[in-house]
């Protein structure tokens, strides 16, 4: 099996699997229990938070603030947006602007749509419309902007934004603007900063069912789930200690490097360049672990199933949209025709050039078979 769909989800690493099993065996206590077993769990939680704060910043200086564990990035994004809405919903009639991008994940985009229905003025910027996307985001912010929500790295193309710069500049223009970053694909790959940052475990070789939301020191949100008051009342429900332990192990064991991904991407591009009628949708401003390209004349789904015959797994656009046409690629200036034929290859540390070779050989065979 050649797994090249790591932007959809990753295989849990051995360190994660061991940590999950160990926690189930030895540290199954409820973190709210006062006895020793509960304390063990509390310590795992507390340690993982520290690990996360360091990992998020991507530098030697950890971020400062609170971490809450969620069921995944969808919950993190919902908590971030709906939980902070109380801060600006009734602020004043004038402060009614929200800045975001046209390439967000539905768990962000649909909440922004709700704000729009509530009367907020939404600016949605598409990468195809500006030469310097970060600057155009900063420029869109003014004294009436209550929220900026942007994804660090796009899941379909790998397009990356300099988030620490964006955060600094937005805060300089309007310190009151809440900055939310969906960092699902950027986590462990690029430095991050923001008032609220969403991350997910299963994209970094941890399990599904665990994610986190970073809340900057001094920032306040309301909980989405109320109940027993766990996690400082911000996310009630007994903490899934096994998943949290696995999450920490996966972060510590993460092996993906820019160099390795670049090698793979360059090799893939080289091979694709020798084939006819290929469009590359992931440009230079994209991280190298995701390569989106269009094999014209072969619909994505057919390519996907043909590769599947050779036990090669890739994705058509975004796995979340389940076969629906990707509006996101349009925002990158990809034509509808090319979007129909878009394939997304996404790497992890274990992928090799030989696997890229096998992928390209099968693509060539598929082209020969399907194109007429």
């Amino acid at each position: 099996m050649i797994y090249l769909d790591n932007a959809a989800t990753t295989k849990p690493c051995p360190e994660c699997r061991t940590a999950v099993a160990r926690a189930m065996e030895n540290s199954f206590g409820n973190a709210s229990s006062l006895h020793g077993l509960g304390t063990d769990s509390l310590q795992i939680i507390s340690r993982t938070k520290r690990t996360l704060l360091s990992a998020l910043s991507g530098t030697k200086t950890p971020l400062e603030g609170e971490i809450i564990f969620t069921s995944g990035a969808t919950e993190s994004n919902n908590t971030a947006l709906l939980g902070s809405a109380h801060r600006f919903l009734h602020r004043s009639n004038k402060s009614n602007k929200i800045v975001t991008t046209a390439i967000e994940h539905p768990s962000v985009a649909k909440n922004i749509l709700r704000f729009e229905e509530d009367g907020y003025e939404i600016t949605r910027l598409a990468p195809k419309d500006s030469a310097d996307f970060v600057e155009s985001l900063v420029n869109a912010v003014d004294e009436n902007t209550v929220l900026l929500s942007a994804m660090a790295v796009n899941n379909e193309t790998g397009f990356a934004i300099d988030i620490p710069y964006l955060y600094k500049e937005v805060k300089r223009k309007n310190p009151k603007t809440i900055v939310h970053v969906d960092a699902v694909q950027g986590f462990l790959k690029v430095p991050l900063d923001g008032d609220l940052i969403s991350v997910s475990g299963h994209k970094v070789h941890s399990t599904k069912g665990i994610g986190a939301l970073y809340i900057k020191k001094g920032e306040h949100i309301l909980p989405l789930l109320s109940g027993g008051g766990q996690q400082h009342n911000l996310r009630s429900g007994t903490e899934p200690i096994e998943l949290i332990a696995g999450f920490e192990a996966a972060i510590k064991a993460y092996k993906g490097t820019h160099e390795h991904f670049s090698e793979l991407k360059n090799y893939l591009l080289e091979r694709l360049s020798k084939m006819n009628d290929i469009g590359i949708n992931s440009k230079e401003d994209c991280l190298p672990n995701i390569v989106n390209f269009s094999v014209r004349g072969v619909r994505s789904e057919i390519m996907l199933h043909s590769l599947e015959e050779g036990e090669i797994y890739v994705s058509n656009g975004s796995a979340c949209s389940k076969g629906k046409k990707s509006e996101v690629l349009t925002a990158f200036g990809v034509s509808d025709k090319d979007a129909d034929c878009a394939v997304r290859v996404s790497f992890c540390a274990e992928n090799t050039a030989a696997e890229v070779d096998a992928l390209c050989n099968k693509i060539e065979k598929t082209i020969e078979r399907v194109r007429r």
Partner: protein
Amino acid sequence: MKEIILAKYGEIALKGDNRSTFEDMLMRNIKRRLKAVGRFELTRRQSTIYVNPLDDDCDIDRAVECMKKIFGIGAIQRCAVFPKDFSAVTANLKEYLNDALSNAKTFKVEAKRSDKTFPMNSPMIQQQLGDAVLDAFPHLGVDVHEPEVTVRLEIRDNGAYLSALRIIGAGGMPVGSSGKALLMLSGGIDSPVAGYMMAKRGLTVDCIHYISPPYTSERAQLKVEKLCEEMTGFSGDTRFYCVPFTEIQEALRDNCPEEYFTVLMRRLMVKIANKICGRDGYGAIITGESLAQVASQTLPALYCTNAAAEFPVFRPLIGMDKIEITEISRKIGTYETSIMPYEDCCTVFSPKHPRTHPKIEDVLAAEQSYDFDSMIEEAVTKTEVKRFKYGERTVFLE
């Protein structure tokens, strides 16, 4: 209080000398379907099948639900059984009829005495039963023309049967009594409905489906298998033939005029179905075609497809609108699965401008330009068969 279910015949009652053949088949179908519900004893007398639960904790509601889908049953009646003693009936009447009558406004009674040794005649039973019901439920009014509830008491050879609930059955003929046929199941809304309609006329319906990986996905096949499984609810155990069709479609694409692609594809599908019908003893092919619905269902296109068939082709939807078909699809519970978005092989390579008025000479000429016969043989050999059993759930795709 013991309850039993009576299944009254539909059309079977009209049969003559061969009636018992149909009765046997219906009994067998009921027995087989009820196996999943519990233990029952089936007997038949006077145009009625008595379904008698053998265990006290038997789920009668579920048994009735199950029987509502069995073709050949005209009406289903739930009854309480009493000894043939009128006072035993009146003593328990209030308890048994409470659910049916406490919220009703009007009623009437019907009495029937097939056991002529019973001391009261039908009019007498009717009168006294009416009085007893009114005593028990004084709020009721009598309406002999349009009552909300009809209370029935039948004095039969082996007991007195009291009921207030008569459910219309599925009608039709017992599945299997008309033989067996092969349904071309695509995954759309229409074909399961066509299967349902022919099962209703007494056919055992098995399904044939064509797959074209990598042009079609595994999910598309699972979807069709799920439809097949859902169809077992009314047609009973079903066989599923899955035909590998990729190579034929590719050969069609590469060797035949594009505008004839669809009609040629349909013909080759029918030819494969011919072989399987002949080999496995099917008497007919069933399709979900509806006149003029799409390019391959115009009169000339149907003529060309039909010319490839060696067996009668049943098209029960031929005169129906999409709206009518959809309505049945919802009723029989296949609609939600049918609209799942996985593409089937019919749309693979489909031309932008298909011929709506193909000429049979042109179609035959195109077909003969390539050796499809050996490909058909190979596809038939490589066809896989699965079996879906009534009441079992093996396909999971939500």
